[in-house]
């Protein structure tokens, strides 16, 4: 029997075949993959996983594809870094960083979801893939499509800065610049996906695409020696990543691969775009859409598709949410780089900033085993820190200048 049972509506529970559809015909609720866990349980084991490839595909039994991974074979299984310096700074005993700044091939967690989406799209008969994106997603779709020999279309708003586009063009996708703003591109892509048989990874392939994020939960548990952490801090854009980490942890428990899950799922947003965190902090079970205004562009989703479900997951796990200012985002990026040598993009600054706040508030306790998800590489958003990192020390090309600058004696020595 197949491991995928059906697509199921998250609202009314109606089931659909596992095709390229994403909205329930009945109630318009979002669809997600329903698995045949009884069947999966018969063959899955820690040993089987450990003997698998050194990529996220070692968890293929829990991913929504029918055959082998045909796209993105090297995505995932990124380092779990024991962050001793940052832990000491924050006053924690055991802190880990799930380091997706080095994810293959485009240095963000999007490589996980895109590898699943394109593998599934190909299984469904698509040779052309598309996405609507202003950053990491476009990068990942274009790179994976190039390697897989698939046609790729990336839709962007016409008012997007040139630098953002350049990183995608190197892979030779067709970049479609829509004469309009973010909202216009958003609406158009939804309409194209509804009217034409195209594989939009984050629209009609979304039920499969989103499942790729679960691998962050699986890897967390395996890399901690098959135990679930006490606390996790997850950056939120659409909210999907947070809900899938929660889903992944619960799947491992249900399958007996981890004995207990007491993990509290904490969400992080930037103040300039915090519809989900604001709802949590005001005790609402619904969020109000906002117009984003933050340097954390990769999290700038003002009307998040999974916002409601992220609130639900955080409540179920008894976690918390918080937000940080742009200045705190930059501080977070610097703190992470200067304590652990990891240069994260702005989303990482949001995560570290919120981690810091939650520790300060006593929500994350000293003895809690804590994991923070660092989802993208700082080389992608250097402009965010350019005015905050100081200047080089300038000297003349002479030994005298060197020694004077660093106050050294003639016998050498260190900086005084």
């Amino acid at each position, binding site marked *: 029997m197949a491991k995928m049972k059906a697509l199921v509506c998250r609202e009314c529970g109606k089931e659909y075949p596992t095709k390229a559809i994403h909205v329930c015909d009945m109630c318009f609720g979002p669809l997600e993959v329903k698995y045949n866990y009884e069947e999966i349980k018969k063959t899955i084991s820690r040993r089987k996983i450990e003997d698998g490839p050194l990529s996220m595909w070692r968890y293929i039994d829990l991913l929504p594809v029918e055959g082998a991974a045909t796209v993105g074979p090297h995505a995932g299984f990124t380092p779990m870094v024991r962050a001793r310096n940052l832990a000491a700074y924050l006053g924690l005993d055991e802190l880990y960083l799930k380091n997706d700044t080095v994810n293959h091939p485009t240095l963000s967690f999007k490589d996980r979801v895109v590898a699943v989406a394109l593998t599934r799209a190909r299984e469904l008969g698509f040779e052309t893939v598309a996405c609507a994106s202003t950053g990491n997603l476009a990068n990942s779709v274009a790179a994976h499509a190039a390697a897989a020999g698939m046609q790729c279309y990336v839709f962007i708003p016409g008012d997007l800065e040139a630098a953002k586009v350049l990183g995608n063009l190197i892979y030779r996708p067709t970049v479609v610049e829509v004469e309009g703003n973010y909202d216009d591109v*958003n609406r158009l*892509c*939804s309409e194209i996906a509804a009217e034409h048989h195209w594989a939009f990874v984050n629209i009609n392939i979304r039920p499969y695409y989103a499942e790729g994020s679960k691998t962050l939960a699986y890897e967390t548990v395996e890399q901690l020696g098959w135990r679930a952490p006490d606390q996790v801090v997850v950056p939120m854009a659409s909210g999907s990543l947070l809900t899938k980490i929660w889903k992944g942890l619960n799947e491992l428990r249900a399958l007996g691969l981890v004995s207990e899950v007491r993990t509290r799922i904490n969400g992080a947003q930037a103040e300039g775009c915090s519809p989900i965190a604001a709802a949590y902090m005001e005790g609402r079970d619904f969020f109000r859409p906002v117009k984003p205004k933050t340097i954390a562009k990769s999290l700038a989703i003002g009307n998040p598709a999974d916002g409601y479900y992220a609130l639900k997951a955080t409540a179920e796990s008894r976690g918390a949410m918080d937000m940080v200012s742009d200045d705190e985002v930059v501080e977070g990026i610097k703190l992470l780089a200067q304590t652990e040598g990891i240069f994260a993009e702005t989303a990482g600054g949001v995560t570290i900033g919120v981690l810091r706040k939650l520790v300060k508030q006593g929500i994350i306790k000293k003895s809690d085993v804590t994991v923070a998800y660092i989802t993208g590489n700082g080389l992608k958003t250097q402009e965010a820190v350019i005015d905050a990192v100081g200047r080089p020390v300038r000297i003349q090309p002479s030994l005298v200048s060197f020694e004077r600058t660093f106050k050294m004696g003639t016998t050498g020595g260190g900086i005084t």
Partner: protein
Amino acid sequence: MPSLRFHIRFPENKIKEPIIYQIGHEYKVVTNVRRADVRETTGWMDVELSGDVAEIERAVEGLRKKGVLVDPIELNVVE
């Protein structure tokens, strides 16, 4: 007949207005509400509009002019 699906959100001062009824009369579109949550201070609806595509687009513009937020059913898809 083409149909498009939207998520519409009412600000507090528009909750009591029969906006869906008005749109169905002002434009040649069929309105079909499939899911909704309307409370004292906030409200949203998932609605299908059927008709000519150009007329649907005019109806969406009409909704916006009435002060209602209109998004595709998927909400934000640009990531």
